């Protein structure tokens, strides 16, 4: 049998922000709208270079972050895969329309490169202070998917995952990275198109007369007609019935709201992504995400070298919260350490899941410096 020659992937030395842009293009993103802000700007600059060179790519610099959200949602409604990227202050401005995207179930990806806050804060320093805002930033009860990445290759990988989940679940997906991950340079290899799973939204299978744009459907995710396809739907941020028209009838409102949650809550096995490292026999676990997970990885290796049974759970999906994986650790381990660059935004989730079973310790830094492996090691030993 002829031996198939192994293809060699293209390898580049890139920043996290470049990897995000690469991932977006690989995932089929053809629309970007944004407003410059450190430390996310490189994503926008790369999209400005790349998109006009693609067949139908559109790049827009809008007048502010609110406009960027609006333009991206508009593009999504026409069938595009759309993205916007920002940092702290801009992420605050996007919140109202993130809720709009949840409400009308418009797939899109919002990248927030976290810097020190509140307010203008520390524009060039890393932080993890926007974690709970990503979950609860927009008003009203709503489900949302929040992902994170801790290395440059993961930035590419998780951006593709973000687009896929946005399309599959018809929801905005937020990708949270931090200044360190965004600006660190590492080698990444660019996957071939046929190596990647790239998902697209479900299209209507019935003619316009029969189509209900917000009907109950398999998985709770209705098919989505693009503007201009002949379906002439109504899209509104008001709570709507199955036809998309405003309603305040309690039964219809309840049906809509529960479907909105159910379409994500029933698919935890698909949505919750974690990395388990050295956890099989661990007596001590570290739960971390973003650049801190990287430090934690080193710390775990060092602790193991000294004979301590320590493992690491890296959260790649931050919300919905990875309850099953964390619960397992709460039963297995005597101590859990949650190091993060905020005053305890994920540790409160861990404590909630733990429900008093084991000891949860926190390690917090809010001075614009990353948490080092030795700090984590010291906290463990």
């Amino acid at each position, binding site marked *: 049998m002829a031996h198939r020659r192994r293809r060699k992937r293209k390898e580049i030395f890139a920043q996290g922000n470049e990897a995000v842009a690469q991932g977006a293009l690989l995932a089929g993103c053809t629309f970007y709208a944004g407003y410059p802000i450190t430390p996310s700007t490189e994503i926008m600059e790369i999209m400005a270079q790349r998109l006009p060179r693609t067949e139908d790519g559109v790049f827009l610099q809008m007048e502010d972050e609110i406009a960027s959200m609006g333009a991206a949602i*508009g593009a999504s409604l026409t069938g595009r895969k759309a993205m916007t990227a920002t940092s702290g202050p801009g992420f605050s401005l996007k919140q109202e329309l993130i809720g709009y995207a949840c409400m009308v179930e418009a797939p899109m990806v919002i990248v927030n490169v976290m810097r020190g806050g509140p307010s203008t804060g520390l524009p060039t320093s890393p932080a993890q202070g926007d974690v709970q805002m990503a979950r609860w930033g927009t008003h009203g009860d709503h489900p949302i998917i929040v992902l994170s990445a801790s290395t440059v290759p993961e930035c590419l990988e998780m951006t593709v995952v973000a687009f896929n989940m946005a399309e599959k679940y018809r929801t905005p997906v937020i990708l949270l990275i931090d200044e360190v991950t965004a600006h660190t340079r590492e080698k990444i290899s660019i996957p071939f198109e046929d190596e990647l799973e790239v998902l697209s939204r479900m299209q209507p299978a019935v003619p316009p007369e029969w189509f209900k744009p917000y009907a109950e459907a398999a998985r709770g995710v209705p098919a989505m007609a693009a503007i201009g396809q002949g379906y002439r*739907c109504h899209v509104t941020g008001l709570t709507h019935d199955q036809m998309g*028209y405003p309603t305040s009838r309690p039964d219809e409102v309840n049906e809509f709201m529960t479907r909105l949650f159910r379409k994500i809550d029933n698919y935890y096995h698909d949505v919750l992504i974690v990395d388990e490292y050295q956890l099989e026999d661990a007596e001590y676990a570290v739960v971390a995400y973003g650049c801190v997970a990287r430090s934690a990885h080193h710390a775990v290796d060092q602790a193991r070298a000294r004979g301590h049974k320590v493992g690491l759970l890296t959260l790649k999906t931050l919300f919905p919260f990875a309850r099953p994986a964390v619960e397992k650790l709460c039963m297995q381990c005597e101590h859990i350490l949650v190091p993060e660059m905020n005053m305890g935004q994920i540790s409160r989730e861990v404590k909630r899941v733990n429900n008093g079973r084991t000891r949860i310790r926190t390690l917090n830094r809010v001075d614009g410096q990353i948490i080092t492996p030795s700090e984590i090691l010291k906290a463990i030993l």
Partner: protein
Amino acid sequence: MSDVTKLIHEYLRHNKKFPHVFCAGCGHGIVLGSLVRSVHALQLQKDNVVIVAGIGCSGRMAAYVDFNTVHTAHGRALTFATGIKMANPELNVICVMGDGDALSIGGNHLIHAARRNIGVTALVLNNQIYGMTGGQCSPATPQGDMSMTSPFGSLEQPFDTVELAKAAGANFVARSTSFHANQLDKLMQQAIVHPGFSVLEALSPCPTQYGRKNKFRNVVDMYNWLKKNTVKVEKQKEGDTRIPTGVFQNLDRPGLEERYVELRQSLQAEE
């Protein structure tokens, strides 16, 4: 069937639960009628018409018409419209906004849409007040006029939509009123077909909120006021302080979406 009935059958949604939200005498319904007549006169394909509306009484009109309709967020209609037009330049994108929508919370988007000359038609339904929220002052409320939030008369100078849009560089700028339905139809058609960014302001009475607070005895008074206090711009003489109507700017720059397609083609030709 009369012509009006035919239009109703063809362009209003049958599956939408009427009655509509507009008060008796509201000018917004007249603008909606004009929009439907204009789309019909221009023979635009319903599938290619997109109505992008803001939040307010004006924004509610999107739900009633059988086009692609997007009821967005307060002030943000133009941002959605920009995304839609850039993503699919074949579509006829028409934005419907109130004066609060277009001039206050969305004022920044209005001037930037004009500056970037995106191929969208912006209809500003100016009733000089916040209708939906119960009659508060808007950036179009005339100085001295009463509202729930200017109970002693507004101290602030209002925006002039036409002058603002002209200064910001809109390709086509026009004004008419709900009283002048024929003129409104004509200008509406021009605004829709004009390339680049078009702004059409329609002065549109709100008897419920504005009229009652400002000593209009009834709806008819409000329409009479529009008749008496407006003048076609071509007929306006020096010193005439009536509000001019008609076309105020008529430039011929290509829309951003056209220029973008050209850019893309030239970049691809390079490669």
